[in-house]
């Protein structure tokens, strides 16, 4: 009997492709209609003037906030539910036995499944991003034209009009906006890999979803626990709270680290170096959870 290679790109891509098709057939992309409604609706929100304080860019911030919130919600829910469903569904359909009785290492199977989900989330995010950028750009250009007209009538110089236009465009479709979308994707990838790990020892889909949601929620406040732990430790303090925050910092991922879209919504610029390091953090989290999934799953009796 010939020895099977540990990881095969061909095998993984076949499993990923099959998973992607399987998920697409579940008509998951219907959520895009809801996304379109949220983004289209958000452009009618007018928060540029509250009392005497006016900032036309505020409407764009609200629109970006709604867009990113919807992207986050859909991609995370999609990643979580699709991954949580994978193993139970494959067992139920007996597909898992058909695959694993062939010379397919379990690691290839898990990576293939995860990549299938990631492909689905990526396609979904690309469509959402495209739609979002299109609507945002239309809104920005309309706003620039409106402001230019207003300032011209007020007799302002070309330089002043251009400065206003630049300030509005800074809140529009920029490279940093795409960096924010990458961060959303990273978050979904990490959620999917956690769900994959949980599903390898879980007894039901609901259990997988609940445990993953709990891990994500704790991960969202992990940074605060870490800050507290490091601060107290540097002071030489010792308390049950210190121990608790130590274990939260060690065991849970820092989801806040992947939330750079908060800054992007306010028009902050994301440098390539920072995006690279945020991506590295996301990929490292996903890699470690995938390896651990394999460790639990490799000799599991099915």
């Amino acid at each position, binding site marked *: 009997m010939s020895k099977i290679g540990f990881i095969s790109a061909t095998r993984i891509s076949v499993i990923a492709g099959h998973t992607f098709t399987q998920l697409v057939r579940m008509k998951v992309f219907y959520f895009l209609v809801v996304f379109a409604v949220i983004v289209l609706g958000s452009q009618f929100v007018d928060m540029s003037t509250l009392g005497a304080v006016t900032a036309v860019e505020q409407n764009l911030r609200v629109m970006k906030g709604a867009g990113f919130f919807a992207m986050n919600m859909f991609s995370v829910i999609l990643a979580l539910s699709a991954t949580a469903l994978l193993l139970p569904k494959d067992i139920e359909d007996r597909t898992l036995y058909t695959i694993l009785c062939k010379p397919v290492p379990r690691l290839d199977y898990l990576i293939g499944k995860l990549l299938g989900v990631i492909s689905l989330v990526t396609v979904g995010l690309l469509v959402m991003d495209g739609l979002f950028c299109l609507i945002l750009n239309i809104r920005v250009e309309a706003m620039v034209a409106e402001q230019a007209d207003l300032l011209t009538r007020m007799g302002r110089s070309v330089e002043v009009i251009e400065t206003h236009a630049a300030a509005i465009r800074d809140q529009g479709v920029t490279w940093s906006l795409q960096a924010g979308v990458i961060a959303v994707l990273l978050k979904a990838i990490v959620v999917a890999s956690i769900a994959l790990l949980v599903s390898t020892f879980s007894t039901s889909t609901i259990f997988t979803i609940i445990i993953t949601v709990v891990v994500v929620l704790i991960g969202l406040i992990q940074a605060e626990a870490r800050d507290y732990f490091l601060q107290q430790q540097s002071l030489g303090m010792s308390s049950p709270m210190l121990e608790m925050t130590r274990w939260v910092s*060690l065991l849970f991922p820092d989801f806040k680290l992947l939330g750079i879209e908060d*800054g992007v*919504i*306010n028009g902050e610029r994301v440098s390539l170096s920072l995006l690279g390091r945020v991506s590295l953090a996301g990929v490292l989290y996903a890699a470690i959870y995938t390896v651990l999934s394999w460790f639990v799953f490799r000799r599991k009796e099915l």
Partner: protein
Amino acid sequence: MSLALKLLVVLAVLACFGWLRMPFEQRLSQELTESHLLSPSFDRESRAGLSQKGFVASFGSLRPMLAAFTALSTTKSHGNSDWESLEQALETTVLLDPYNAYYWDLGAWHLAYNASTSSLENDALAPLQRKALFEQYIHKGDTLYARGIAARPRDVHLRLERARLWSSRHKIEDYPKVAQILQTTLAECELSSIQRSRIRGDLFYTLLRIPERVNDAYVLGRELYDASPTNRFPSLLNGLCALQMHPRVTVDKPLAMSQLYSSRSEALKNLGNYLNDSDTHKPRYGVEGLVKRMRSVDGN
């Protein structure tokens, strides 16, 4: 290997991985916060104040959305003159979205202008109480401007609004403070040539109103005058004319009246307006006599 043992190994690996990644996470988190890409973490007190919202807001991109909704709630409190609720809503808003200058501006405006005036006109309070509350709200508004500037040091608008507050004749005029704010803005912010010129102009009008700094006002006024003919607004020319006659101002080569004004009638008109201005802080030393002399010459 049993499942329990496997899970123990998983936890051990996660703990080791956590120990290795902690310094990287901490450094990156600090850098992202410094570059305003991440909002600062809530401290325990803030989180307790936010209650359930704190957890919801932890989820990516929900903080700006929640901030927008809490900012909207200030409109209702404003309508009801419920300044305590308004203050609470503002605190929550700026806590949720500290890098959005709009909320600092909105909060400071509500407290320094609306809450202060409302307190001053509140008949239910004793006169001294009204005055104390009026001043208290102005200072609270100023504190919000200062916190907003600390959160967004490059934001010029917040700084100018703060300067506007302390130069408002309906509030508490404090020209030395205005001058300090404008000078800091010129020193610390990236400004376009138009913005720089405008702020320098504002600084001139401010220094003009501080008796101890009339000499600085003259130096700056001359710089603005010499820099470009487009700076020569009547207010600048009137200020320079008045300062040249001021006993505290040292002038090497004073500008002749013909350099300041294109004609005698224009000089009379502009200086007349300068004298009639209700702002008592402008230096008027010698201006009245000059106008009288010009009028008497005209009469001859």
